[in-house]
């Protein structure tokens, strides 16, 4: 029997999926727990005739991505939480200059140097813009190594289509974990987007400029209105989620990324005990699948938000289902602690009591 599966880590999958999506510039700086991704790219980019640069800092990495992107090439960087903080300046400039880019954040515990254990503590930073100014970044959160092969092409497509930086949010579990992946997922069709704005020299056209400085307030507001219009369009078009609920469910667990795997285990166990619990996993964290959650809350009145962080996504769920007859609880562990299935089951039972 032909072997159609490969065993690959999440970090390597981010890299391979990016290459298969047409990424041809990668710049990065070492930081745990995403180093396998940088190492993978240093080798694969050479094979693909792309550009790999080990930068002197995350500040340099994100600005190298800026240079690759304005040249019209699909460009990406990756890092983990403290490094992503350093990149926020550059991400704001990418947004202001309307440049596509993909930034993978394999989250670790914080704040400060924190630790290298898996975490989801950068939810607010990722979904609220992160840097200075009125901008948002689409945020995609895969929950398995296989799903990374679906998420990465999507991330590059959204980046190119809307000319925006896109965050792919993973965590230390997803990055380090190896899972079998069906080789059919490697068949990624690269969509071509026309980039007449790219700087390639002014031969046969007028000189072009890519900038984010608009000294006149009304001109800067115009840029902002254009961006906000695009964000509305993204919110309309790009929401993605996985949902498994029924009217009989007593409660819905909402979780993303690696935590959704824990949630799935919990739901299976409770089912055996005769307790029906629904499952809702946002795949896009911004735009958030608020409408869909609201719809579910018409029938089910209890929600538990499960996170490897303080209650952060909790706030988005509350905003979505806000109503006097809906109860939203949170269970989050911080500092790299992963909530156990037993802990979650106990919480659910206490809510249902």
């Amino acid at each position, binding site marked *: 029997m032909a072997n159609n599966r490969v065993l690959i880590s999440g970090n390597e999958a981010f890299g391979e999926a990016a290459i298969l999506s047409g990424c041809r*510039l990668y710049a990065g700086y070492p930081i745990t727990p995403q180093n396998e991704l940088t190492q993978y790219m240093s080798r694969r980019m050479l094979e693909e005739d792309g550009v790999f*640069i080990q930068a002197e800092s995350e500040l*340099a990495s994100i*600005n190298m991505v800026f*240079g690759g992107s*304005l*040249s019209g090439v699909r460009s990406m960087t990756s890092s983990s939480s403290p490094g992503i903080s350093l990149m926020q300046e550059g991400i704001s400039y990418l947004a202001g200059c309307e440049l596509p880019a993909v930034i993978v954040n394999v989250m670790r515990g914080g704040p400060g140097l924190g630790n290298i254990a898996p975490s989801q503590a950068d939810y607010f930073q990722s979904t609220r813009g992160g840097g200075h100014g009125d901008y948002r970044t689409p945020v995609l959160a895969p929950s398995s190594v296989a799903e990374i092969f679906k998420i990465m092409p999507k991330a590059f497509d959204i980046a190119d289509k809307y000319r925006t930086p896109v965050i792919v949010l993973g965590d230390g579990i997803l990055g380090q974990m190896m899972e079998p992946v069906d080789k059919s997922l490697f068949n990624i069709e690269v969509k071509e987007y026309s980039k007449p704005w790219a*700087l390639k*020299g*002014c031969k046969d056209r007028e000189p072009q400029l890519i900038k984010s400085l608009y000294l006149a307030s009304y001109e800067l507001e115009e840029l902002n209105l254009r961006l906000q219009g695009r964000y509305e369009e993204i919110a309309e078009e790009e929401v993605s989620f996985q949902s498994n609920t029924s009217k009989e469910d007593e409660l819905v667990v909402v979780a993303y990324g690696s935590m959704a795997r824990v949630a799935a285990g919990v739901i299976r166990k409770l089912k055996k005990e005769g307790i029906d619990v629904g499952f809702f996993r946002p795949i896009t964290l911004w735009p958030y699948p608020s409408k869909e959650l609201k719809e579910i809350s018409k029938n089910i009145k209890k929600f538990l938000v499960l996170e490897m962080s303080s209650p952060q996504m909790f706030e988005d769920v509350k905003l979505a289902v806000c109503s006097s007859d809906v109860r939203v609880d949170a269970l989050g562990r911080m500092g790299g602690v992963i909530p156990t299935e037993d802990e979650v089951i106990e919480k659910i039972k206490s809510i249902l009591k």
Partner: protein
Amino acid sequence: MKKIIYTRPKSLREVRTHYCPGCGHGIIHRLVAEVIDELGLREKTIAIAPVGCAVLAYNYWNFDTTEAAHGRPLAVATAIKRVQPDKFVFTYQGDGDLAAIGTNETIHAACRGENLTVVFVNNGVYGMTGGQMAPTTALGQKTTTTINGRESKIHGNPLPLLEMLKVLDGVCYLERRSLFSPPEIKKAKDALREAFNNQIEEKGFSMVEILSPCPTYTKMTPVDNLKWIEKETTKTYPLGRVK
């Protein structure tokens, strides 16, 4: 018969200047434009403007330009040149951009030997923000953050960037010039030509530092500012080829 000996380079737009009277940027913008025309590079040029007074360089230049975050032009330039090695890529940076907030990017692009050209405008102050001390401010020089003059014990010493870069293998050419007289301006242009040519010949990293006047924040007349650069600034930053 009339012979045209002075005309606007094609690489320079016909616009009014926003720079202060006596500022050096206008001269340097023009020198860059002249050399790009002479070397036939306009249609394949991608320039990176800094944060600082010269951020608006793209209002004057008639070729593709982008604007980098403060201190980051050489990271941006590195990627552009790696992705598009057939293009001519240069950064235009002030002392604060290149030698304070962007020192890391500067040193590492130079150390990697990126095939890039840097036009380094050293006027010894932060002009755009109101004349504060720059990394290049000379000892004794008064600025809005060194009101009694720069003192090494309190403010540290001036940064000789070219002399620092000299030791790096990736660097092929470093020269410091000035604008205080027509012959000096000609030498500055010659240095730019050599630095631009190095990139065409794929020789590696080149930087030309130009000591430039800022009469507004040195609180001098334009002529006195030039004389001061000739007599005083060149003591801290001697002119000539460093590498």
